[in-house]
């Protein structure tokens, strides 16, 4: 559905996008995870034809973006990071205006607006001015404005920034609903829990480059990081604790009979069996994206 090949963009001496390539399958939610300044918004701006790439190509549903800009615009919907609405217009007036920009027939547009307002749960507030809306409500109308022309592809640039948890959940439900209807979505964020919940494929982006991509499982398998393990012992003496810490190089912490570590579980189990240390329970957490990002970039996602 979407093919990005060797894309680069430079602003002066600053390389915002550095030779990135990726594919997005039809009907997929593709997550682009990275910290602020990684190049996510620049990529969205290029894909939405606001700015032109210096090098590389983008193909949307078989249409070249640079050669068929108008055609491309008709199949893409963009949810920008900023709230791009006219505050002194009502939700209805905003949607009507943006719908007209796509040349949608009056009757069709009216029906479409009603459908979308129902989808986002704001049909009862449609005649209220945007400036009276909460942040979460504005974000939902922001999404709605991108859906009027029934785009096949939706680019969502950090759509939940500054939004309360309840509204965020509502937005997730809208995204999932749209995806069920067949919309292919590129979703950028710096919140890993969002990509974990929503995305089929994840690309980790930093300093203008895609440093890893794949499903969550693929990324977890790629990494050298170990899972987070918690072991509860029946009974463990102080000297046994010290011996375990001395035996293994990875960080280990003890709290009473509980041990936490990012360790190779097989190794620790083998040691416990050999030294007859009885285990009551084991809890294992797969390596997180935060860990993966830290391993790949040397910094935390929130830095």
């Amino acid at each position: 559905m979407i093919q990005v090949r060797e894309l680069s963009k430079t602003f002066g001496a600053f390389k915002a996008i550095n030779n990135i390539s990726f594919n997005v399958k039809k009907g997929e939610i593709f997550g682009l995870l990275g910290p602020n300044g990684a190049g996510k918004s620049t990529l969205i701006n290029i894909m939405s034809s606001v700015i032109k790439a210096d090098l590389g190509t983008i193909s949307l549903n078989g249409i070249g973006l640079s050669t068929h800009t108008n055609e491309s615009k008709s199949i893409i919907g963009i949810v920008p990071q900023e709230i791009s609405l006219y505050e002194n217009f009502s939700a209805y007036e905003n949607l009507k205006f943006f719908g007209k920009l796509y040349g949608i027939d009056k009757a069709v547009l009216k029906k479409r607006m009603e459908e979308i307002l129902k989808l986002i749960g704001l049909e009862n507030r449609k005649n209220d001015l945007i400036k009276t809306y909460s942040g979460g409500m504005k974000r939902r109308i922001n999404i709605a404005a991108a859906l009027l022309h029934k785009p096949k592809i939706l680019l969502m640039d950090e759509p939940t920034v500054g939004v309360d948890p309840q509204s965020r959940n509502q937005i997730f439900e809208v995204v999932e609903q749209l995806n069920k209807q067949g919309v292919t979505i590129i979703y950028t964020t710096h919140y890993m829990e969002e990509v974990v919940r929503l995305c089929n494929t994840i690309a980790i982006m930093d300093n203008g480059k895609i440093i890893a991509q794949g499903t969550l499982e693929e990324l977890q398998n790629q990494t050298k990081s170990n899972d987070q393990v918690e072991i509860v012992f029946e009974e463990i003496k102080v000297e046994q604790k010290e011996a375990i810490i001395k035996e293994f190089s990875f960080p280990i912490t003890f709290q009473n009979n509980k041990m936490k570590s990012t360790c190779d579980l097989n190794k620790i189990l083998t040691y416990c069996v050999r030294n007859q240390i009885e285990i009551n329970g084991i809890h294992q957490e797969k390596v997180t994206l935060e860990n993966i990002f830290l391993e790949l970039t040397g910094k935390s996602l929130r830095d």
Partner: protein
Amino acid sequence: MIKTIVKKDLKLFFSDKKSVIITFILPILLISLFAFAFGGIGSSEELIKIDLLIVDLDKTPESKALQQSLDSIKGINLIATTIEKASKAVIKGKYVAVLVLQKGYAEAVKTNNAIPLELKYDQSREIEVGMLQAVLMEKLMQKLSKKAITKNIANYLDKEFAGMAPSMKNKILTGALSDEYTEQSSFVNFKMTAILKVEGEKPNYGLIQAVAGTAIMMLLFSIAEIGGGLLDEKEGGTLKRLLQSPLKPREILFGKMGAALIIALLQLLVMFLFAWIAFGLPIFNDIISLLVLIFAVAFAVASFGIFLVSIARTRKQLSGLSSMIILTMSAIGGSMIPLFAMPAIMQKIAVISVNYWGIQGFYDIFARSLSLVELLPRIAVLLGIGLVMSMISLKLFKKNLLKLV
């Protein structure tokens, strides 16, 4: 605590170089400009010069001597021409009047008959004609009265006192030639002919100046504000959404201009309607010409507003730029004081201002009662300004688009 706040605000203020320039340099520039522009009022004749056409039909040494004498007047710039060219130029509004030295001038001077001088003028420029007439009268009286008075007295003495000694006669004539006496003589008079007549009720020139000058200046300010809506869209994020839609950049810019044009039209209509209701400005004398001129002015101003927006990147920049440019244009274009009251150089510079073309156009309608056809050159200039500004704005907008998002 107050001191802390004061220090903080001063630091913020001086850290913004553009604000500092606008606060301190702009007033200095404007004072200089206005002092130069308004310096003609109440000053010596050297600053205000009226162009006067002169046609010499007599072509004698006496008529040439008069021309030289008039040329020496500091408040007048004498331009020799033919009667046909002169009439056309006055009708077109380029000159206030033409002084015609009719055939027989030299003979009249020698024989002490009525001097055949005629001042053909534009009746709509009453104030300037009045100033010209006063200056001419004074000079002509100085030049011509002396000779005529001498001859009159000499004839009288010869008639009534035939046996008078020549020395006595010379003494009397010398006394009669004193400057004080000759200046008080009302011998010289010239025929006044209006080439361009004002039909009906005499125009209220002050009202025309006030309405036209103020309307255009205030229009420029309000349209700059409206054009600034584009920068609000940039700051609000909606400009990006517009660019992401199938709209082309030129459609966005000209859409803004279209809205500005409609608002400008409405504003001018309201102002002129008000002037009619409150002050009796005769807007219905030639409503078609007025509406066409209003459209042309609105178009030029709307394009100018968009031009300002295309060179500013923030609202603050726009505010500073628009104040500076609009006040300058208004000062030199005659929005604040009538053009004729400004120095000659300022009157020449005035043509670069939208205000000049608009105000003169309104004078053409209300004071000079020109027809729509005669107004067309001014309208064409205004439309031309609008077109050029629009094209430049589009180029700049496209160039600065990246910086706008």
